[in-house]
């Protein structure tokens, strides 16, 4: 009888000793992410770094897209849909403008003073009517009231890496949809894009963008308001 009770006692005791390790875990911070309800991974510890050049979510900087449909053509699963409209002869959406690429990676859009064809690398450049953007994937909405104010800025010759002239737009995209639920991240479309406007995000946001509704995964990149508003305001600015 004595032995029997001691056996029970020992059984319970050893389990408790083992449980101490488990119970200690109750007071540790959580490692598990309650996915999909918590998906703001940036705020969490133990997040893997996404390497540069990772093939994540597609992003189209639609301002640079020329609607050439090469990406639509190469896509093996046909998940890109593009429709464009050409304006009647003589009409254009905005006048030509310049993009100044700075050596620190920034790009500034505006109109260069003087003849933009004759700029030499050593010259300092004065830009009027500018908006600036950073990196290839930041959205620029140059039509926001703050973006179109007539600002002027001067850059010295060694700040600037190159100046590009953008021609007037005579073509606009009615639709540029990418169905990210079909996409298999092969990257063929980004490779063929002649203006390098279609890119893949290599950040956490480009990896984790899950949605509860499948239709939310159809990304629409066309910006109708850009064209409509851009028409008048850019024309004003050029006057």
């Amino acid at each position, binding site marked *: 009888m004595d032995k029997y009770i001691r056996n029970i006692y020992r059984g319970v005791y050893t389990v408790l000793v083992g449980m101490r390790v488990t119970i200690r875990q109750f007071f540790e911070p959580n490692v598990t992410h309650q996915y999909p309800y918590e998906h703001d991974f940036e705020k969490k510890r133990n997040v893997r770094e996404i*390497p540069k*050049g990772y093939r994540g979510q597609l992003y189209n900087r639609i301002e640079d897209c020329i609607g050439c449909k090469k990406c639509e053509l190469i896509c093996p699963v046909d998940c890109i849909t593009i429709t464009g409209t050409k304006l009647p002869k003589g009409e254009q959406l905005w006048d030509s403008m310049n993009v100044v690429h700075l050596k620190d990676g920034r790009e500034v859009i505006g109109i260069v003073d003087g003849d933009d064809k004759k700029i030499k690398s050593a010259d300092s450049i004065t830009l009027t009517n500018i908006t600036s953007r950073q990196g290839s994937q930041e959205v620029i909405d140059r039509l926001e009231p703050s973006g179109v104010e007539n600002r002027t800025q001067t850059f010295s010759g060694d700040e600037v890496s190159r100046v590009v002239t953008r021609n007037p737009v005579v073509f606009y995209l009615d639709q540029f949809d990418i169905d990210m639920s079909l996409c298999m991240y092969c990257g063929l479309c980004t490779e063929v894009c*002649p203006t390098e406007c279609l890119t893949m995000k290599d950040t956490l946001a480009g990896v984790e963008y899950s949605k509860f509704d499948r239709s939310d995964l159809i990304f629409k990149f066309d910006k109708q308001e850009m064209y409509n508003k851009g028409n008048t305001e850019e024309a004003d600015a050029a006057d």
Partner: protein
Amino acid sequence: MQGGLERATGEKMVLSFGPQHPATHGTLRIVLELDGESVLKATPHAGYLHTGFEKLGEHLDYNQYIVVTDRMNYLSPLSNNFGYVLAVEQLLDIEVPKRCQYIRILMAELSRLADHLLWLGTAALDLGAFSVFLYSFREREKLYSIFEKTTGARLTTSYTRIGGVLRDLYAGCEEDVREFVNNFPKALKETHTLLTRNRIWMDRTKGVGSISADDAINYGLTGPCLRAAGVAHDIRKAEPYSSYDEVTFDVPVGTNGDAYDRYLVRMEEMIQSCGIVTQVLDNMPDGPVNVENNKITMPNKSDAYGHIEGLIHHFKVVMDGHGVETPKGEHYCATESPNGELGFYIVSDGSGTAYRIRIRPPSFLHFQALPHMLEGGMVSDTVAVLGSLNVIAGELDR
């Protein structure tokens, strides 16, 4: 019908192994006819993961099809990419630059390591050795970070292109790979300690699923399974493709052709692959990674922006009827993938899309040899044999 009758009398039992079974790694099925514990008859069934990859080749153009090859042997997609583009390049009769060949070999050997590591982990796990699984996955994870940085994706790499590769190695790739290769033999030693002289492991694998050299050749086994049977045949040595004739390595062979020998052969192959990787890194030439033929590869961006020809080519390469077009004819090209001979047979009608692409996957032929290895054995050996063959369902069914 027959089987059902006999089952009713209690003499034989028909056991369906798979399609859903933890040890099948993918959906495949083996119907076993059992007498007690021993296997009287084994009938492998393929087709549970049919994906239509071969048919897709008939309407995807040559560059688009690379994406599909990732998904065949999903344990070593880089080897598949390599094998496929090599077949198309031989059909086009072009030679890629030396640096490109070396990069491809480097990636193919690293993916061989990754494939063998995964095989090692799962084969051991099926037989109950859990720590080996964790050890091999720890190493495999390092490789996958290298793949991720090089290609932009962990699994669906799509790294090669007709006439080149997607992009050059990233800065610091050499150090990463060297660090991995230098530490790897030490890590593999742990597994050797755990398994190689382990009584249980030896009992479960020695003499199990053995096949003689003649039978192995007759069944069309290739790769580690053939070499384990004692035939020193390796396509990298026998018909060197790309730059494999410039590296030295040994071809390990077994004697009995059983599961244990397949294990030993694969373990040694990993060490040999490390040697190849080191040689490739030491001799990595400089230069371009793509052929400079604008009819085949995309001109680089500065060319496209700076010259009208460049821009025209940049567009034409993508357009149907102006891009990569193979001459009329047919070609078979075999490469040594981690599992064995991976062949691509392309019939071209002279257009930008293949008329027919036929793939010779190693797993398909290994799978058909299963009855030979299983019949007469015990039912528990099925798991050991299937594990040792490394049948990959994606490649089996295409």
